[in-house]
């Protein structure tokens, strides 16, 4: 793996193609912040990055316990990476609970850095350990570096007169400094962050954190136990200007872009729920874009207010996670009957019920497909990566406005909190899409007909304030054309068919499905949503091993791309990996009558590449 070596001050530097690090500690230890800084810094150095934050649902779970362990994993590499990595090259553990719950993922010979000060008897007791894991013979498998982080940090920051608690809090920056030295990470971006975050009256804290960071770096340079450091060359990404982006952030920005492209003001309503709330926080900052954010009294009010805004001619959007989507179901049916454009975004988490709020899962697919009363189909789209959230919501809003229909977008906790480099688009190249509000009565013989349709079966989006087009819409079945209440049996059948055909028409607005790999072969891996990175990497690895395997990753789940049936027919086997019990598989089997094989995992965790790879190999023997 070593390609070249150079030296910094004293110690040699080994260049490697990629590194996976996981930082683990108490949920109050600042591990998420540390991970985000390492990610951002690595991205700025030109590496490709992929992340996996993993934290408990409790804000401050009991200190030192296994339940309170918060972790952040990042892979940075000189080549394209699509996953945060299966196994760890290095593990930084701030306490015994963090160590024992994460050690299994560290490779043999991997670097294990621990805060030695937090392995006292009381710490062991909190982690329900009788003896220190550091004394365990199995430690010989790893390169264990014991660092008195608490003590060293305290000594480093004494000059700033912080309280014991404040000084102790700086130790994550000490750990960060050590990791930065170890992997040749430039400290500038993090220093900017520190001084930006702790500005004004908190300048002592900023100075202390900077000192801790530099002390950590100096420690790495000095101690004999670390004989060398590592570095990773920039990745050869598509030329362009990049930034680091997280899924929920990309989603929020995609909504801003969709609003601009359609010439609409964004009305965004939601009720706080993990892991979707960050979208609300993000959009609430952009009021100068004309964004109206509304924190509603509940999930139902959120979707209903978005419907009201859409009726008024704005871009109505609501976001939630599985439990909230369940509450919105009736209103989604209303929007479908009103035939108004609306986005309903589900950032999936582990279910059922409250389930695993901070863990990822793909088990809401059937809920958004079928979880409404009556024949109530809706278009369903799914983002495949953090950056893709930006694109998928624009696709969704395009469909919503062109078909006058609510559209569901699926994301998940893994995508929402994950980060990747994002090539910044040229805003001038974001094309407008046409959204019209009629001004003239479409019925020469009488009142305006709100349900007269165009070739895509979309009805006109006539908005209040338009003279002469007054009309009433409602959830009761209505006569096609006039929109008047109708209980006529023939009309109901006709309307049910029209509403289904409208969804089917979405396929005309979307590109055909593409396939990564051979056009035909022994196995097609068919995946959707946040498993993209792992599936792609596993398929590529199998292709390198000579397997005739391809990947079709779906972004459009309802309707399926028009060419999907043809694609499925060209492979001997279809493998559908999902973080659920086989929901896409059920849809594919019923729609195409193919004997698709499932690979299903429901642990609140993303797929590892190796488990997918093994499944692919097993199926192509």
């Amino acid at each position, binding site marked *: 793996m070593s390609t070249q070596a150079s030296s910094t001050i004293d110690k040699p530097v080994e260049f490697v193609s990629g590194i996976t690090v996981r930082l683990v500690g108490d949920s109050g230890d600042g591990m998420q912040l540390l991970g985000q800084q390492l990610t*951002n810094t690595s*991205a700025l150095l*030109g590496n490709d990055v992929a992340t996996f934050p993993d934290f408990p649902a409790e804000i401050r779970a009991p200190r030192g316990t296994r339940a309170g362990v918060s972790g952040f994993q990042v892979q940075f590499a000189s080549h394209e990476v699509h996953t945060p990595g299966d196994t760890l090259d290095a593990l930084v553990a701030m306490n015994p609970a963090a160590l024992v719950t994460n050690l299994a993922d560290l490779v043999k010979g991997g670097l294990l850095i621990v805060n030695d000060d937090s392995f006292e008897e009381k710490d062991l007791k909190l982690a329900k350990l009788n003896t220190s894991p550091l004394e365990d013979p199995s430690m010989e498998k790893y390169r264990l570096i014991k660092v008195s982080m608490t003590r060293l940090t305290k000594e480093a920051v004494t000059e700033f007169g912080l309280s014991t608690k404040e000084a102790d809090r700086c130790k994550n920056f000490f750990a960060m400094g050590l990791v930065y030295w170890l992997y040749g990470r430039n400290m500038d971006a993090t220093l900017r962050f520190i001084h930006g975050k702790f500005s004004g009256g908190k300048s002592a804290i900023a100075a202390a954190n900077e000192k801790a960071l530099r002390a950590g770096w100096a420690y790495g340079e000095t101690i004999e136990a670390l004989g060398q450091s590592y570095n990773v060359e*920039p990745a*050869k990404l*598509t*030329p362009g*200007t*990049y*930034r680091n982006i997280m899924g929920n952030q990309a989603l929020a*920005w995609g909504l*801003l872009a969709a609003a*601009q492209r359609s010439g609409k*003001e964004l*009305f965004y*309503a939601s009720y706080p729920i993990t892991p979707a709330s960050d979208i609300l926080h993000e959009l609430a900052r*952009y*009021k*100068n*874009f*004309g964004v*109206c954010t*509304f924190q*509603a*009294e*509940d999930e*139902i*009010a*959120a979707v*209903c*207010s*978005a*419907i*009201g*805004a*859409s*009726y*008024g*001619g*704005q871009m109505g959007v609501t976001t939630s996670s599985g439990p909230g989507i369940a509450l919105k179901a*009736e209103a989604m049916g*209303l929007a479908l009957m*009103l035939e108004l454009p609306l986005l309903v975004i589900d950032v999936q988490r582990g279910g059922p019920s409250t389930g695993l709020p901070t863990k990822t899962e793909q088990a809401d697919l059937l809920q958004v497909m079928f979880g409404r009363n009556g024949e109530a189909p809706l278009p369903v789209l799914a983002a495949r990566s953090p950056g893709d959230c930006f694109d998928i919501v624009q696709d969704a809003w395009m469909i919503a406005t062109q078909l006058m229909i609510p559209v569901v977008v699926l994301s998940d906790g893994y995508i929402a909190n994950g980060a990747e480099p994002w090539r*910044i*688009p040229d*805003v001038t190249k*974001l094309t407008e899409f046409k959204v019209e509000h009629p001004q003239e009565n479409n019925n020469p013989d*009488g009142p305006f007909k709100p349900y007269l349709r165009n070739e895509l079966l979309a009805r006109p989006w006539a*908005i*209040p*304030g*338009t003279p*002469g*087009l*007054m009309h*009433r*819409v*409602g*959830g009761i079945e209505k006569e096609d054309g006039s929109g008047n*209440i109708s209980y006529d049996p023939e009309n109901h059948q006709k309307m049910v068919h029209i509403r289904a055909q409208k969804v089917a028409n979405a396929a005309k607005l979307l590109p055909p499905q593409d396939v990564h790999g051979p056009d035909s072969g022994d196995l097609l891996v068919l995946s959707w949503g946040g498993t993209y990175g792992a599936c792609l990497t596993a398929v590529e690895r199998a292709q390198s091993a000579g397997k005739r395997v391809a990947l079709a990753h779906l972004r459009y789940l309802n309707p399926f791309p028009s060419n999907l049936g043809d694609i499925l027919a060209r492979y001997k086997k279809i493998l559908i990996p999902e973080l659920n019990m086989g929901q896409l598989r059920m849809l594919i089997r019923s729609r195409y009558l193919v004997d698709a094989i499932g690979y299903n995992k429901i642990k609140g965790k993303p797929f590892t590449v190796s488990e997918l790879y093994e499944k692919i190999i097993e199926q192509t023997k």
Partner: protein
Amino acid sequence: MNTALKVLKADDFASDQDIRWCPGCGDYSILAQMKKVLPEIGIPPEQTVFISGIGCSSRFPYYVNTYGVHSIHGRAPAVATGLKLARPDLSVWVITGDGDSLSIGGNHFIHLLRRNVDLNIILFNNRIYGLTKGQYSPTSVEGQITKSTPMGVVDHPLNPISVAIGAEATFIARSVDSNIKHLASVLKRAAEHPGTSFVEVYQNCNVFNDGAFSYAQDKATRDDATVELEHGKPMIFGKDKDKGIRLNGFTLEVVNLADGNVKEDDLLFHDEKADPALVYLLSRMRHPQFPEPIGVFRNVVHETFEDAVRGQIDQAVQQRGPGDLQKLFNSGDTWTVKA
């Protein structure tokens, strides 16, 4: 076509739809008064939107030739809030019933009031579920025999006016379906109030709960069973205007004016701006111990929700300039990969 000069009439607000309420329903009267008042408000039909939930009253939007949404059970306040935030230029009315707004939609109802969205919410209170054919509602009285309570209602009813006070409503009024002059005047005042105007209308369901408010409706009894609230005036009632309401400590009492022992000046003078605690006392006046107040209980002006929300948007634009996507995308740390 120049509509600006056209003088609108009630018929301009009539839709072409057949009305499907039961013959004799109190809803007809409310619809008629609404159609009479709408032209007087001076807002054209295309600027007016009626939003309703589910129930008999909620069919209302179909019968007025304005824009309208017949939404889902209890959610009209939420739909209306979104519409009004999106389109502050519109005149928005929410039409609801006692079940729709106080049972399934109770949450949205109180939050609408506390936010003070500039719209008018008209609650048709008939103390019964009509559309589902006669179950008790959250305003049904204790002991009321209904299809779902053959042995009588055991719940304690909600008092809509009391709830509105608790929910920080800025405009609270009550009227009676058959008292058409009074109803029209209250609707008009509701329309004029900036902020959420809440109007409870006693409405007779002649099929499932006939006569629930007969004391307040019948010409023979209503003068003694109701007291008309007039701002700045003493609370006097009775066919012969010979009774009044007096505040005694923190209790209201009915006093007789005829015997000359109590003077008008001793009576409670109605004040629409009074402390909500006093308004609450008025809301607790129940027949037959008291005449039930009709008219405007409370009318105070606070900033409307949409003004506050839009104000922040305007402020953000002023402070930071209109949003620039490219600038946003390029903000923070970026790096360039060369070809």
